[in-house]
């Protein structure tokens, strides 16, 4: 079985985002970019399925700037993806547009499983996997903390509000990853060197003939109301006194 893993290049999760002074967005010039953390978990999940002998090939795909080929798609290959597809664009593509492009990639590649991060840590949309599932008419196992492939189905344990839920999906299927699914391996230097010779197919958004025009217009982006540090109390007595003042403690 082939596994497709879509990945996104985002502001590195350790970098504090800065809102641009003109309110047009978050400043991404000259800041460290990296692989969306949930997508790293998705790659790791695919690699483990390959190591178990369940998957035969892993294809990573990204939609974004050409530079992604030498950073996030390199990381993906170094972690274990066999090859990569770059769908190059300098424009931001919304989840619906991404899902439409991915549906075309799925048509061409015919994977048995598509594993995606549950959300990207930039726009926090949490939509692409579900949308792709809808467009393909496939079942979806979102927010996965455990994946078990057997026969013509995959059992996915999902992190839900009250705890955990397990669903059984007929393959082919979509899985989106949550934090506890695995701990992704590091892309080691030797593996990064080796990954450079793994193939990358370069495509353009126009090659797929789908309309990815944005539906949402961002009118402005502002910083949230900030909180300032309050008072320090010396000990438990003082804290209890404050809690009593607030009516929290009797």
């Amino acid at each position: 079985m082939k596994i497709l893993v879509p990945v996104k290049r985002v502001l590195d999760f350790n970098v504090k985002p800065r809102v641009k002074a003109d309110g047009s967005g978050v400043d991404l010039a000259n800041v460290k970019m990296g692989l969306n953390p949930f997508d790293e978990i998705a790659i790791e999940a695919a690699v483990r399925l390959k190591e178990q002998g369940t998957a035969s090939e892993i294809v990573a795909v990204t939609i974004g700037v050409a530079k992604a080929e030498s950073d996030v798609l390199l990381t993906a290959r170094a972690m274990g993806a066999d090859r990569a597809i770059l769908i190059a664009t300098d424009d931001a593509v919304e989840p619906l547009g991404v899902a439409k492009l991915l549906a075309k990639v799925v048509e061409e590649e015919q994977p048995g499983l598509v594993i995606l991060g549950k959300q990207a840590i930039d726009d926090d949309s949490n939509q692409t996997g579900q949308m792709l599932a809808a467009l393909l008419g496939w079942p979806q196992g979102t927010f996965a903390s455990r994946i078990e492939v057997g026969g013509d189905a995959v059992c996915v344990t999902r992190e839900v509000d009250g705890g955990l839920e397990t669903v059984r999906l007929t393959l082919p299927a979509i899985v989106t990853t949550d934090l506890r699914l695995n701990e992704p391996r590091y892309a080691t230097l030797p593996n990064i060197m080796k990954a450079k010779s793994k193939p990358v197919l370069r495509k353009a958004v126009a090659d797929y003939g789908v309309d990815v025009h944005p539906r949402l217009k961002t009118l402005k982006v502002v910083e949230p109301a900030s909180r300032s540090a309050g008072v320090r109390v010396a000990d438990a007595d003082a804290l209890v006194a404050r809690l009593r003042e607030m009516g929290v403690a009797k």
Partner: protein
Amino acid sequence: MRALVWVEHDNKSVKDATLAAITAALQLGEVDLLVAGDGCAGVADQAAQIPGVVRVLVADDAAYAHGLAENVAPLIVALMADHDAVLFPSTTTGKNIAPRVAAGLDVMQISDILSIEGPDTFTRPIYAGNAIATVQTRDAKLVITVRGTAFEKAAASGGSASVVPVPSEGDQGMSRFVSAEIAQSERPELTSAKLIVSGGRALQSGENFRTIIEPVADKLGAAVGASRAAVDAGYVPNDYQVGQTGKIVAPEVYIAVGISGAIQHLAGMKDSKTIVAINKDEDAPIFQVADIGLVGDLFKVVPELMGKL
């Protein structure tokens, strides 16, 4: 505008998060509710009591027993022929279904709205709440998820909506519910609690979580939360997690014990009215947002606190 709100429930009662989504929907126009479930007539009757609601549409079918997105989404897509907007609470189930509906309607979903600025304009958090975007949609129909802490909860009684059965779209036959491990707790639910006591990695073990954090929470009648680090370390189950990708909470008082305050955690709790932090590292980022800070060893401070409460 005619808005539809998907009602989250367990076939017995309406979940609280739905009430905030109803408040948001009422700002858009006339509101119908959808109760899709199995043996859910009681839920529909309960939903009909919510003031301001015109109709409660009920799809009662075994296919909807567990809220599987594969089965619920086609039902909502069909009902959208008569509605201009559909709203979901930003719960794990809401977030699972909504984008499947949006793609079915060829609409770009607006996730996790904080406010409604106009019939097509909304604010929503991006970058873990480090920025707030105002977005305007060009789509003819709206698919929205609503952040529960950003809207008041609608009242649960006083209304008298009509209850109208709608046909099921049936089981799509591609997914099946297997099992659930849902935590049973006497404590208040995290997302609607007025008071939360949360613990972090500094607790060092699940045992310490149970003997140090939980007694204080129970004494105060608080819900118990945790940082991602504490969940990843296995001290507590995943449903305790507060943060960007966990639960978003905004209680009256949030007491953070041994939590350093990574931006991903702050994203989930910084709208709390009062934040109390106990941490032995005086430079911990949590103190930059805390209204009341206590620098000290939690293993000493919290038992002391417990003794004095």
